[in-house]
């Protein structure tokens, strides 16, 4: 069977990925790159699932990751769809430009 391994470092790694993603989301202004940062955060969640699944010896964690991966792919497709549609109308728009709706 799989040995029980200390998962803390994986958790820390995942937390760091999550943090980097969050940081990037905040500092980057290209909507596309912002979206990539969200991908980083999703990866952090996946890593936690897998690390915990191994430690708990529970395959459910791994199956969860399958679902997340596919959903993430769907999100990429949708995100690109919306982006293409918006950039068609406002070439070179950055996140800061997207402030027509406010108040």
């Amino acid at each position, binding site marked *: 069977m799989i040995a029980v391994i200390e998962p803390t470092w994986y958790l820390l790694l995942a937390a760091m990925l999550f943090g980097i993603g969050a940081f990037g989301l905040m500092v980057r202004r290209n*909507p596309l790159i912002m979206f990539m940062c969200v991908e980083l955060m999703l990866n952090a969640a996946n890593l*936690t699932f897998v690390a*915990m699944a191994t430690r708990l010896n*529970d395959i*459910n964690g791994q199956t969860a990751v399958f679902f997340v991966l596919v959903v993430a792919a769907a999100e990429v497709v949708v995100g690109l769809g919306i982006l293409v549609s918006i950039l068609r109308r406002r070439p070179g728009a950055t996140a800061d430009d997207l402030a027509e709706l406010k108040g």
Partner: protein
Amino acid sequence: MIASLLAQAGDWTSPSIDWAALAPEIVLAIGVNIILLLDLQLAETKKWAIATITGFVLLGSFVAVVVLAVTGDGARSLFDGRYVVDDYALILKALFLLAAYVVVLLSQTELEEGGYYQGEFYVLLVCSVLGMVMMASARDLVSIFVALELLSIPAYMMAAWNKRNRKSNEAGIKYYLLGVFASAVLLYGMSLLFGATGSTKLTDIGAALLDGDLIGLDVVAVVFVVCGFAFKISAVPFHQWAPDTYEGAPTPVTAFFSVATKAAGFVALMSVVFIAFPGADGVYQPLIWVMAALTMTFGNVLALRQTNIVRMLAYSSVSQGGFILMPLAFAGEPGVGPAALNAVIVYLIAYAFMNLGAFAVVIAVTRKTRSGEISSFGGLFSYAPGLAVAMTIFFASLAGIPPLAGWFAKFNAFKAVLDAGTTAAYVLAAIAAVNTVIAAAYYMRVLRVVWMDEAPDGDTSPVKSPAPVVAALAITVLGTIVLGVLPNLIARAGAIDALTGAFAG
């Protein structure tokens, strides 16, 4: 090893699928395919039929829900208790389907006149509803996540559906970026929750959290999960997308967001809170308390200064969310749980009718005035008395004026909170009371314009509302009045302690 495992698992059987319990979902899934095929086959001039067919798909699913509710003998548990069809799920499924039906009625003329994409739009709508219907039954983190994505991903695209409009674009991208971000937060919370409790099934998580003291990991997990859902219900400080998206998105879509998507977020939050988090009430209760107080206050204060009616309704919907959230802040107090659940469900039902109705009136009026400014509603009573009366009913109901649906919902929520009887409960009730007054101010202001002002450009030609919009208005007016005058109808429907797995202790 294998033998011993098999011996231990002797009473475990492979999941047999109760197809009847899944009938509403299956009707929707088949419906999606039918709509897709028809969209390919139908000539451009006949595309209007798609809306009608979408309506029938939703009604078919609704009938299935009703049949299940009438013939149902208790809860049906599927997939090893990860998918449960109980009274709680059925009521909310019915709510989602009805709300979606009204949205289809409202979308019909909007889409035809706007020249948007017909077939695809309805596919997205039905898929999103499918996600909501699944959400009502999902009792497992993974199922909840999948259902949430299934309802959100079409929603992102629906927000941006009016492609040629910059505002709609912006609405879409904002909703999308913040939405996937919130999904990531939620998912991270779920992964930690799984790590902390060793299961993705809500009942197991509940048992694990009740067992022993909470540790740091549990706290983070609970906070992240609650925050993830808070985005969907646009609770402050996760609400910023709502006004921007509501204003930018096509109006029927906004109606859909403000009612159905929000209700779906609440459903997920309730399932989690009542089934998985009874052991963590020390964590989520203060969090929800603060969010509820902030949500109703910010929503109201910001609504006060709006001049655009859709944006005002957006903030009003944020603030109403705070009221719906309020009883959940005491869900873990002894004896309050069922009352809190009841209060939230009753509020969601009442809110669905009155808010959809408000948007229906806005859609009907703006077809003529082509403006979303509140001042453009002046003189409505003189040239469209029917619409003015309907609008009065909806806004008065939103303000909580008896005897309309919104009043009973608010009363129920207050009652549940006061049942808790703690100082925190009294303080929150006081905050809510103050907010009800502030809210009355801006709802009344609109009604004043409708009844007292002159039409801004002197144009008092009557408003011609298409039949589907009239039908939507009829449904919502009827619901708002009937639920207010005879609240025992929803009080009975909401008096369920049949959220399987909750209130066990």
